[in-house]
């Protein structure tokens, strides 16, 4: 894939605490890709800022593009922003389950790191009918905004300390 080598990407899903991203190990030549995290886009904004502060230039993707990276064997490892974890699995920022299932299918290691904050279960439906404050959908369109989801333990291979 034009300029991208197989196994050259560390993929981040969710909003991470600054401390977690400080500890993130990125080998030389590896790229860090960040899922943008609709509807707030907080993952793209906050993670990018923290990575730039470390001298790492992040590459933002839309939340629907993770699958492409896996399909092209570009992903070396995945980190999920985790709000709570136990033996049964982990409560993560929404979007984690997609990455978890993809990682399992493509045999890519999946790891947890602390999320920036604990969120409510559901966001405001108004958030998904607009983008950066601008109304996108037709008036009257319903929205559904789950902010967290459960990732069963069978998808997880290693938990962060």
């Amino acid at each position, binding site marked *: *894939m*034009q300029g991208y080598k197989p196994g050259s990407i560390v993929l981040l899903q969710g909003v991470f605490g600054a401390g977690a991203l400080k500890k993130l190990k990125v080998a030389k030549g590896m790229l860090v*890709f960040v*899922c*943008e*995290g*609709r*509807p707030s*886009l907080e993952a*793209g*904004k906050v993670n*990018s*800022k923290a990575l*730039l502060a470390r001298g790492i*230039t*992040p*590459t*933002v*993707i*839309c*939340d*629907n*593009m*993770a*699958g*492409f990276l*896996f*399909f092209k064997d570009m992903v070396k490892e995945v980190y999920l922003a985790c709000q709570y974890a136990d033996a049964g699995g982990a409560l993560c920022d*929404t*979007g*984690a*389950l*997609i990455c*978890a*299932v*993809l990682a399992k*299918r493509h045999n890519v290691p999946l790891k947890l790191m602390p999320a920036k904050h604990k969120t409510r279960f559901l966001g405001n439906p108004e958030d*998904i*009918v607009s*983008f*950066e404050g*601008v109304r*996108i*959908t*037709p008036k*009257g*369109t*319903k*929205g*559904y*905004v*789950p902010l967290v*989801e*459960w990732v069963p333990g069978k998808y997880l291979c290693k938990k962060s300390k």
Partner: protein
Amino acid sequence: MYESPLFWPAHIKGKTLFVLDETLVPSKMKYIPVKDVKGAVAVIRSMKTRAFGQFLVVLNTFLLELDARGDLVKHLEKVAGLLNNSRPTFPFAEVTGIIVAVARKAKANGADVRAAVAKTVQGFLAGIRERRLERVRQLAAALEYGDCVLTHCNVSGELAMAAAIAIKEGKKLKFFATETRPYMQGAKLTTWELAKAGAQVTVVADNTIGLLMAEGRVNKAVIGSDRSAANGDIANKVGSYQIAVLAHEFGIPLIVLTQPSKGVKSGEDMPIELRDADELLKFKGRAVFGTKTKGFYPGFDVVPHSLITKAIPIHAGL
């Protein structure tokens, strides 16, 4: 039958092709006048039209270019080349090749090239319209009472029209439409046309599909396709692959509207268009994630045939 404006988003009147600007729907229904191949390539490349609309533009462009002076066959070959190179993932060459072949044959036989091409294009359009309507009826039949359907991007009017038929038959249906970043065709177009068809629709972020499936909130997924390979693999809007993988994981049937083709052997042979990253990094000219962040924007995914539960094909032959 209810017909969505997205089902047939380009109409020729005289020497002008009027193409629905899908980037403005639903706030505006504005048609862009296209007078030649240059204008046609511009509306395709800028995604003013997309999916089936592009094929309408490609075919109708030959009608716009029939008055060229000089060697008409050579001119149509040049037109075909420009259209073929407008967006790499789409198999425009499979369509333009047919038209150019008709022109060459007419010339070789001493027939009227203009008349032969016009007749072919008009016949092709009429045929494909009927076959797409038939596909709408097949999709309507595949929707069952109580279905809660996940869809992605926009299926060029066909899902909304199928929903209208199914609802009229008394089937109770619900739809979840992914937003489909960065152009947001799901949030803008799919929600709009499903609501117009009388369907109940909810928009979700693209990252929500796992939860919808894991919690059993959807029991079927329906997507379109922009290209098919001989082995049944398809290319469709980016995001389709992860929907297919998760649907497979959670035992949810994936229905795909396809255009069978033997142009390439498998999905691996399909070139994937990488679009300008600014299309996802910027919104209304403003950098959303700061100015130092990079972006990556593949326009399409390949979905292997093994992940497709049911393909509803349209046969686009002449």
